[in-house]
């Protein structure tokens, strides 16, 4: 059978003959599905073969070893970003945001390095390569977002930053240059002129000049001329002190000089130098012809702008991008990554985020970028959808995290910063985490109590207590009951212990009951249990008088559950029969009253009682006669004794 969703139709089939035509599925966990063959009640089908239950889980790239480091580090940056934004004035946001953005980028780069190292050792090569490409794309997009949205320089002149962006992501020309310069005769190397063109296109004038100076004809006129032009090219510095207008004048003067020299035929002897000069003059055709050196339309765009319009502002970027795309091959050849970059250049945040979701199959990137953008743009009122989008994407990200056996703690930390829905999800998740052993339970309880989720603490303690009880570990069960501060559960446990005592005649976990301390007061039954144990201790120590007082108070205070009265009365028997009267007349009356009640209840319930009760009842009835005799004897003795003392 197959299943498909609306947008991306991916299909998996389960190879099992039993399950064909009758598949049924239910949600089995945070992101797993349990699938099994469905039995139709109305048809009497014979099922051949074993019936199996399949657990279908989604696997995310986020669960690979490389991504784990990214997730953990990103958590630290995310939380410090949320805290910083709360403390700092809105005007100072920018420096914080730029810093955090760079932290994210360095994390991604560290991840890429890890992958390169891993590739040399072991691991699934295909997977590692795919991861590497994914991370490269993320870093590319993030650095562009940093330039266009977060680190906006005053004046809006972005070419300098774009040039740095291209330089750091397209390093072929540097590699070629190194290769060329290391060879014996650089100028004869096949890649020599390509390296020169590449350097010029990226604005690396120093590198280009260095290479040209190695040419044997470096002293000739054409070379000297081009060297001068390269040296004198003006570059705009944001804080350089030169105004935009003045820069424009200088630049145009420089470019007209380039054109003049070209027209005057300074480079007619060397057509490569002519190409270089044409590039400097901003000849579109020449630049387009060198597309092979640039690979992508954005490189082409930046290089074109460098030599045609260095004072380009953000709002012009879009049309320049369209031109570049047209040169490269038109709309058909654009990839999803190109769409993201294009959307960023159009300053359309929503589109950027949407396209990112198409490019990347995991939510890590979109969630963190939306968070960054939300804080950047949060002040302007025309981006009202951002906070909600941020919340929704982060919740998606967290739901992937909490479905992993190890990353749930990080998920909970993120939820602290997502408002009321985050808190609600946090509570729900903490309650549903599997409790594999004590230390995990303690950690969940610690996280829940830090966030004041009392119901979660109670819930976890109840589960652990119940489990301990079913394994016969009464000590642990009581501890969890006490920890949960849940009177109902603790009473239940205490009842279990008392009932066990009634059947077996001894306390299994006497030590823990001795030292309950103030926890005893949590529930009446537990208090009774503790006091009863105290009675045992007193009796064993020989402190009969106090023991008797305690026993009678236990009986008369009605703390004891009804099924336990026979036991208490039977405990009173040796005290009644002791040599010295330890039970006073008053107390004897109490005991008689209790016996009377018990007898009435027993006879009323006689017909309906279960087997166990019958056994205790019958044992009790045997002793009843004995008890009555002892009580009346004691009463007589006590009255006499008290009477004589009075006298």
């Amino acid at each position: 059978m197959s299943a498909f969703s609306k947008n991306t139709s991916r299909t998996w089939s389960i190879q099992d003959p039993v399950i064909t035509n009758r598949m049924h599925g239910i949600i089995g966990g945070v992101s797993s599905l349990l699938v099994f063959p469905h039995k139709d009640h109305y048809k009497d089908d014979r099922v051949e073969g074993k019936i199996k239950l399949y657990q279908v889980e989604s696997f995310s790239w986020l669960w690979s070893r490389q991504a784990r480091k990214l997730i953990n580090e990103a958590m630290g940056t995310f939380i410090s970003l949320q805290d910083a934004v709360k403390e700092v004035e809105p005007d100072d946001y920018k420096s914080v945001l730029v810093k955090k953005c760079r932290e994210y980028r360095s994390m991604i780069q560290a991840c890429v390095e890890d992958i390169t190292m891993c590739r040399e050792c072991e691991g699934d090569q295909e997977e590692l390569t795919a991861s590497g490409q994914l991370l490269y794309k993320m870093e590319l997009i993030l650095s562009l977002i940093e330039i266009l949205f977060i680190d906006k320089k005053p004046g809006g002149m972005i070419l300098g930053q774009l040039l740095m962006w291209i330089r750091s992501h397209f390093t072929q020309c540097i590699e070629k240059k190194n290769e060329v310069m290391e060879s014996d005769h650089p100028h004869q190397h096949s890649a020599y002129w390509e390296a020169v063109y590449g350097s010029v296109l990226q604005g690396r004038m120093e590198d280009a000049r260095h290479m040209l100076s190695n040419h044997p004809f470096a002293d000739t006129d054409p070379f000297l001329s081009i060297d001068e032009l390269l040296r004198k090219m003006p570059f705009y510095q944001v804080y350089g002190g030169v105004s935009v207008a003045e820069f424009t004048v200088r630049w145009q003067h420089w470019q007209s000089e380039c054109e003049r020299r070209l027209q005057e035929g300074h480079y007619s002897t060397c057509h490569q130098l002519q190409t270089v000069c044409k590039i400097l003059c901003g000849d579109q055709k020449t630049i387009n012809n060198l597309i092979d050196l640039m690979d992508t339309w954005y490189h082409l765009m930046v290089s074109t702008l460098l030599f045609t319009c260095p004072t380009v502002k953000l709002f012009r970027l879009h049309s320049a991008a369209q031109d570049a795309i047209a040169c490269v091959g038109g709309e058909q050849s654009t990839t999803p990554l190109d769409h993201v970059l294009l959307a960023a250049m159009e300053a359309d945040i929503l589109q950027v985020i949407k396209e990112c979701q198409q490019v990347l199959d995991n939510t890590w990137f979109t969630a963190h970028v939306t968070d960054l953008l939300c804080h950047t743009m949060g002040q302007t009122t025309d981006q009202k959808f951002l906070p909600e989008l941020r919340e929704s994407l982060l919740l998606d990200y967290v739901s992937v995290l909490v479905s992993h056996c190890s990353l749930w703690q990080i998920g909970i930390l993120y939820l602290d910063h997502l408002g009321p829905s985050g808190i609600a999800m946090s509570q729900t998740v903490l309650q549903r985490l599997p409790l594999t052993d004590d230390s995990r339970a303690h950690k969940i309880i610690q996280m829940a109590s830090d966030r004041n989720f009392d119901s979660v603490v109670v819930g976890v303690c109840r589960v652990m207590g119940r489990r301990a009880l079913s394994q016969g570990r009464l000590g642990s069960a009581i501890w969890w009951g006490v920890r949960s501060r849940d009177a109902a559960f603790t009473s239940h446990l205490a009842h279990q212990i008392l009932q066990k005592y009634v059947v077996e005649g001894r306390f299994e976990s006497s030590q823990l009951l001795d030292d309950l301390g103030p926890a005893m007061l949590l529930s009446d039954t537990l208090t009774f249990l503790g006091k009863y144990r105290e009675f045992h201790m007193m009796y064993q120590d020989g402190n009969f008088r106090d023991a008797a007082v305690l026993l009678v108070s236990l009986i008369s205070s009605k703390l004891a559950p009804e099924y336990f009265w026979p036991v208490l009365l039977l405990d009173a028997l040796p005290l009644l029969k002791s040599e010295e009267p330890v039970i006073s007349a008053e107390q004897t009356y109490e005991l008689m009253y209790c016996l009377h009640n018990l007898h009435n209840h027993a006879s009323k319930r006689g017909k309906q009682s279960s087997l166990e009760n019958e056994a205790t009842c019958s044992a009790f009835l045997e002793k009843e006669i004995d008890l009555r005799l002892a009580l009346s004897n004691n009463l007589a003795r006590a009255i006499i004794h008290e009477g004589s003392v009075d006298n």
Partner: protein
Amino acid sequence: MEVTKKYVARKIKTVRWKPPTTDYGRTDVFITGSWDDLDNVVEVWQVPETEEDPSRLHQLPHLGSVNDMQYITRDMFAAGSSNGGVKLYQHDSSNHLEEKMSWDRAHTFVGSSAPCTALATNGDQIASVGEDGNLVILNPNQKIPIRTIESVGGCSVYAVVYVRASEVVTANMQGHLKLWDLRSAQSARATLLSPDQIAVCDLASHPTQQHLVAAGGEDGALAIWDMRNTSQPFTIISAHSGPISEVRFHPGAPEHVFTCGLDGQLIHWDASASARPTHIPSFKNTRDPSGGSINVWLSSDVARGAIETVSVIPYSPLPINSVDVEGSTLIAGSDNEAIYMVRQVLLY
């Protein structure tokens, strides 16, 4: 003091330094055990001389979470697992790990296995405790445990430590410390109580003064017990805001204790200020080394709680599970899937 943090892609439950090859030597190799993952591992790491991060030398898969690891001799250590088993590994000089012996059902509940929570060793035997409440004594050469002391009452035991060659103290979730004499056939010699059913999560014994035991509790308080006077702890000092996960005395400078907890803090307790020199003029007029005849931990300053506490690691949002210190380097493992390394930890 510099703190470095290395992300290792797994939550670390236990870190232990490999004992140095000579008594006063240095060690630059440590092992870590992970927990709560689909595939847990025991790994060997080396700390370089320079300021770089530790590098991984070897990795071995481990079934179940690694709840505790202890070195029995310089090249053998035991690891306790959450699936109830204890395994013995050899850690040779080429930093390669190999499993030598395994006791698979050391701890069991009725019908299933119980996690092993802590290990202790006296160099000869291994004492293991678990959530089933049993204390199991193992001999590295025998498949069958030498002795199993079953608890009465079924409370999980969280910590165990040797105070003498044949005496062991265990601490359980109710906060009870019990002193067991392994030579005798009877049960605990003394039961110590901690009020209010506060669980004791870890125990550490003083390296030289064997009657001194430090207990880290669920309420974040460190209790110092003197085993000669077992009616109450010598002192209880609070510092953490959540349960303490591990307590460690510095092996060379025992007036320093390190604790780490679920609140993400790693605290250095420094009692050296209360160390006073002996006024008895000895023949050579030398001063006793601190931690010697006058035990700083039993001085009145400590009893008052006048002890310096310093937070070593900057705020960590997730629990720090384990700490170990050797020489002047401290390592800690946390749930942030990171190993912290702090050099020059004793010099401020």
